[in-house]
């Protein structure tokens, strides 16, 4: 801002931002470069040699497992994304347009976000007593007479994995969608109603388009979180399913760092392509500046 630049020295912002910049470079920038470098290095399973090779990429790209892993991961991401958008949009819509008392609105919004500050591991674990063979679901279904034998597909299955993803990540959708919905000027809806629009028309032609920044931001979060997960898929599928990162984690455990790095670089490329596709549909930066 011009009003303060006349008083404070030019150097001030650099000094103020230096700690952040140093930590970000040392702990994010350089480590990512390290992973990229590592993906071109050789290894024999015991030690790593700093000699250039394409072998890691050749191995990763020619293996049929890679494609299967990526497809499995994309499937998880797609199902989770659809579910979180539907749930996130509906909950935000309720909070913004139906809860009229501001205190209640903020209170209920916080209720949706508080789990963010608690342990993801514990929130995942908490599904085990629900979904197991003798879990709450099976007991309830049997008591209701709907089934006569417990269902096995509830826990340690793809169903459990996706359910846990939705449980863990929906709040990453609610927060940005709520924010962009809260900015919608109520008089726009009033105007649409005066012009004779039905409730559904208002929803589709006014509210959904004006919430698209939030939906896009939330989608970026959900997609990257699902694509980066290795723990939920390992535990909740009982080791039966794998994702890109869980396979990468296995390679790391076997000390195949260069191969794991090549896989990681491939994953980053795919994730970046998905993020830029989302950004192409919605120009988040210009929308946020509004």
């Amino acid at each position, binding site marked *: 801002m011009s009003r*303060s630049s006349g008083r404070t020295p030019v150097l001030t912002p650099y000094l103020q931002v230096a700690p952040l910049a140093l930590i*970000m470079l040392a702990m994010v920038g*350089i*480590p990512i470069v390290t992973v990229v470098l590592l993906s071109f290095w050789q290894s024999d399973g015991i030690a790593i040699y700093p000699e250039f090779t394409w072998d890691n990429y050749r191995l990763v790209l020619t293996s049929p497992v890679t494609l299967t892993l990526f497809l499995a991961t994309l499937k998880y991401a797609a199902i989770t994304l659809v579910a979180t958008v539907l749930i996130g949009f509906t909950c935000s819509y309720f909070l913004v347009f139906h809860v009229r008392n501001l205190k209640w609105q903020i209170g209920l919004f916080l209720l949706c976000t508080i789990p963010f500050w608690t342990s*993801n591991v514990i*929130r995942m674990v908490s599904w085990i*007593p629900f979904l197991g063979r003798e879990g709450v679901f099976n007991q309830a279904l049997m008591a209701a007479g709907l089934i006569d034998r417990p269902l096995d597909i509830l826990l340690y299955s793809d169903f459990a994995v996706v359910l846990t993803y939705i449980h863990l990540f*929906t709040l990453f959708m609610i927060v940005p969608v709520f924010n962009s919905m809260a900015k919608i000027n109520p008089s726009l809806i009033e105007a649409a109603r005066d012009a004779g629009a039905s409730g559904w028309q208002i929803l589709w032609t006014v509210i959904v388009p004006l919430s698209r920044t939030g939906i896009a931001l939330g989608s970026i979060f959900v997609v990257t979180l699902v694509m980066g997960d290795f723990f939920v898929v390992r535990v909740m599928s009982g080791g039966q399913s794998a994702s890109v990162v869980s396979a990468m984690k296995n390679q790391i455990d076997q000390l195949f760092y260069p191969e794991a790095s090549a896989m990681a670089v491939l994953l980053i490329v795919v994730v970046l392509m998905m993020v830029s596709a989302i950004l192409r549909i919605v120009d988040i930066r210009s929308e946020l500046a509004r």
Partner: protein
Amino acid sequence: MTQSTGRRGAGFWLLAAFFALFVIFLYGPMLVIFILSFQGPTGGLTFPLRGVSTHWFGDLWSSTRYGDLGGAFRRSLMLGAMSLLITAAVCLFAGLAFRRRFWGAGPLFYLAITSLVVPGILLGLGISQLFQLMGFRLQWWLSGLGAHLSWTLPFGLLIMFAVLNRFDGSWEEAARDAGASPWQVLRLVTVPILFPGLIAVALFGFTLSYDEMPRSLLTVGGRNTLPIEISNMTTNVTTPALYAIGTVTSVISFTVIAAAFVAIAIIQKRRARAKRGA
């Protein structure tokens, strides 16, 4: 608003029911493990409750089956505290810096966002390999702390942006006009006004670090943090002790969250009163 005068229709109740179901979905499973952690000594991982006891909490500390839980707990609290202080301080100054144009602001912002969207384990791999290439040993208080900061700082920065959005720079201007030194402006004007926001940043700093697992896994060296110990327990432990540690760590998280909210509420109430009194 005119709509507020209307009677609540079926749409409202349908949406309210959906929202209530979502809240149950969000909290229900957690409540169940809190209840199950008080299983009697012969109880299992699911209902029914075989008596009510604190047996499994005692088991956590007395049994050697669970590894170094006490040490992991201490390390996680220490990391949380360090990360709280560093996140609050670093993000305060970085937020102030971002109010002006400076060279490299764009790339730095994108680096911070990158840190949020990159898979945590990948960053852990990068940090651990970097340390090893440079001949440093992996230590929970150095490489581990750095990995945690790569997670807490970007969130802190985004919160700081939101906080500073509502901050009027003319208060600082007035203090400067009255002859305050830059240090006095910061200490007596900027920080006190921003304090509720800084509490929020600190809340992110502590809780995100305290519960962090994927970035810690490869970077803490030989000594594990609590989330790593718990995630090991998910595959090894088949007793309600798993739920007991879940209850313990959740109680700590909820206490910290509540303390932060209460502190913010007290400050705002005091301000409102001061405004009325003036």
